[in-house]
């Protein structure tokens, strides 16, 4: 009986897999949710394990009966068919019991849902903004208020395109970590600049979509210091797989130091910006800076050589708009173009915008010779 032994084998191996999932839990995260680092993540983890056990018991019950029947009630062993076709009692029993099991499942879940939605009285609030394809963070309230930065994938292209060996945190590393103190309730406010993204850190048990034009919020309190990695979880276009999230949880003292350093930098940058606003830069200065800005914000679509991707992303090299009047160029960069992949970049600083526009107008085969100064951007914004 080949089919018989294969059927048994299939049943046994599926059961083995299912149970190994539960047993492997806790030891490693390859088969299961990562080790929880917050109360909510712990609740989720425990409920998942509980459900796995319930499912396993039902599985063994149902398929135990079915495969007993498959083995014994077959024509080839001469079993004669019975002729019963309903039993109200049995049918009521197997309708009511699942209902009771569901109540057992729903009870703890309900408590967790209520807890995870309670974003009130946080110790600090951070706004996370999704961009195609990076995250922006603004510390809005609490210790660190005023800190603001972008956080972008730091894995080199060479690793992605298989020209270099892949590092330990391949695709899960960024230039600037979101740093938070341990044991504090952190409220994350989410929105997006262009399309829907989702902010997900599995170890902290939070995932929330970031929706352009709307504000959503969620929260976590990290139990222990450490670095926790996550990824964007909502398809957001070409580089959806390349905008990770890295949360670094620090002890309180370390966090205070980090905040001080960041605020110093922010202050210095603000002063510099004020100076820059009235400085007249040379073409070379702007182009050099512009090339960096271009690589960080534009090259993903328009490509480093300015050729774009035909049909999907316009070429800038030789483009009519780039070689046309300066005002049109500034406008499309700051405001974007509705219903296209060209999203607004008004969140960049005046200097960055001036630099990148100057760069684009004088790079590749473009030779307008135009210089756009930060003051021009300021004028446009006003």
């Amino acid at each position: 009986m080949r089919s018989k032994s294969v059927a048994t084998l299939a049943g046994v191996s599926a059961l083995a897999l299912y149970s190994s999932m539960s047993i492997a839990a806790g030891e490693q995260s390859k088969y299961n949710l990562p080790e929880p680092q917050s109360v909510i993540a712990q609740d989720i983890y425990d409920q998942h394990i509980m459900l796995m056990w319930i499912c396993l018991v039902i599985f063994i019950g149902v398929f135990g009966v079915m495969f007993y029947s498959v083995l014994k009630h077959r024509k080839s062993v001469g079993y004669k068919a019975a002729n019963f076709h309903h039993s109200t009692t049995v049918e009521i029993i197997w309708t009511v019991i699942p209902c009771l099991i569901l109540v057992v499942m729903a009870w703890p879940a309900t408590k967790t849902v209520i807890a995870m939605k309670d974003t009130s009285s946080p110790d600090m609030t951070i706004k996370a903004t999704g961009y195609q394809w990076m995250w922006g963070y603004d510390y809005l309230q609490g210790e660190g208020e005023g800190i603001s930065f972008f956080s972008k994938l730091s894995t080199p292209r060479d690793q992605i395109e298989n020209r270099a060996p892949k590092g330990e945190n391949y695709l899960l590393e960024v230039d600037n970590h979101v740093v938070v103190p341990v044991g504090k309730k952190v409220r994350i406010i989410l929105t997006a600049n262009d399309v829907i993204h989702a902010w997900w850190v599995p170890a902290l048990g939070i995932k929330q979509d970031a929706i352009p034009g709307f504000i959503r919020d969620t929260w976590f309190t990290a139990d222990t210091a450490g670095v926790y990695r996550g990824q964007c979880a909502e398809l957001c276009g070409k580089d959806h797989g390349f905008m990770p999230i890295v949360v670094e949880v620090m002890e309180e003292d370390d966090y205070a130091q980090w905040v001080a350093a960041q605020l110093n930098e922010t202050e210095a940058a603000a002063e510099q910006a004020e100076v820059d606003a009235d400085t007249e830069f040379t073409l070379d200065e702007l182009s050099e800076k512009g090339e960096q800005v271009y690589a960080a914000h534009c090259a993903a679509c328009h490509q480093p050589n300015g050729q774009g991707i035909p049909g999907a992303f316009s070429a800038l090299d030789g483009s009519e708009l780039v070689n046309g009047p300066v005002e049109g160029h500034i406008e499309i960069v700051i405001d974007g173009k509705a219903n296209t992949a060209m999203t607004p970049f008004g969140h960049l600083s005046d200097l960055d915008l001036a630099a990148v526009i100057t760069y684009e107008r004088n790079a590749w085969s473009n030779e307008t010779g135009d210089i756009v100064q930060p003051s021009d951007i300021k004028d446009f914004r006003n």
Partner: protein
Amino acid sequence: MAAVHGDAHGHGHDDHHPTGIMRWITTTNHKDIGSMYLWFSLAMFFVGGTLAMGIRAELYQPGIQILEPELFNQFTTLHGLIMVFGAIMPAFVGFANWQIPMMIGAPDMAFARMNNWSFWLLPVAASLLVVSFFVPGGAAAGGWTFYPPLSTQGGLGVDMMIFAVHILGASSIMGSINIITTILNMRAPGMTLMKMPLFVWTWLITAYLLVLVMPVLAGVVTMLLTDRHFGTSFFNAAGGGDPVLFQHIFWFFGHPEVYIMILPSFGIVSEVIPTFSRKPLFGYSSMVYATASIAILSCVVWAHHMFTAGMPVVGQLFFMYATMLIAVPTGVKVFNWTATMWRGSMTFETPMLFAIGFIFLFVIGGFSGVICAIVPIDIQVQDTYYVIAHFHYVLVSGSLFALFAGAYYWLPKWTGNMYNETLGKWHFWLSMFFFNLTFFVQHFLGLAGMPRRIPDYALQFADFNKISSLGAFGFGLTQVLFVYIVINCIRSGEKSPEKPWDGATTLEWTHLPTPAPYHSFETPPVVK
């Protein structure tokens, strides 16, 4: 009351049809149209399957090797759309066309010419989808759910997709109206609703669902189209709209759609299991009520696809409870099938193997479904490979396995020939093995944190992705065997006995010769 010709000579009209290509273009015969639906869906199954092979090839190892991210997104998007709208749905309509008239004792479908039109819309829509790969900017790349604002960013490919969805929707609505009318008006005398075979019941309920939700899909894609081209802002916050509105409307269609693809499978399995158990279906009426309950519940659970989009506590709780409730009628079905097998006299020909495989794997998909219904857990697994594993367990080992069960079950009736039983069993066991190899490990990937729709992944996901890809290649190749088996059956299969399955009790087996004549039941049978 049955609408019949009153032709006393039985099969008098047999050969009154054009030959060659015109036979197929002009046909109004439910069997011809059913065959065309089935061949079309098989072809689309291979188109969608090829895309899946591309996806799995890219994911075979970390790094970008074969598909650039933009093309990868086009592959995942079109894989989903083609499999849902091109393969699974038309296959079930094909079964409906062939089987419903024969199972209720009707001569044909109620609206024969509209039937022809509903089919011939499909190749047009399918061409639009396939050709969109070759227009500037390529095919739609926003996922099969095409959420705005991402889908408002796309190019011509998105418009072609929208048009294709419109056409497919029109085809489905016409098909459903036809099925409803046929079932309600053309049953043989004596066949009361509660005597209909379960396959007919499930299709009746499915058809109502289709009529309810297809216009909703048409509406939402139209809104997307006007947002893209005519300056409206339904889904654009800057103009006073809301991107999440799209998700609500889409899933109001999308969730019932899930059941549209599974209810007819329940029907097929409910025909196959009793036949090969040689025992009547256990709990016929509770099966009917369970199907209806699932259909009704499916209309009030849509937002469980959106737990991470952000909604009030009460909303999350309501959609969680409603979703969990679906487990009850679904459980009833599984228990009924088990009770049907219990103390039967079973044999395990290919249709029965696929039916048991269906129950076995569908239950695993059901378990992961309950786990996904629990909001806190869903927060972790939403948009990860866990969800991919979940819905392939219900769609591939659910709908597709049931389609295979049905195909092997009715091939002798349709062609007059038997398929090769040994090859059929190979097809089942290979499918079973490779399917699980492909998708079981994806549960682990999702739990460990791999998001869906990414062309490249972190190194800790490498092992399972490799296993999954190998499984997928094996599964894809195995399906070529199915095509061979079908062609072999038609061309040179052994002649089928009049009633190859001794446990079969429905009209097409008890009242019609094998193969079924071109025109059947011109005089309705009397059902006692």
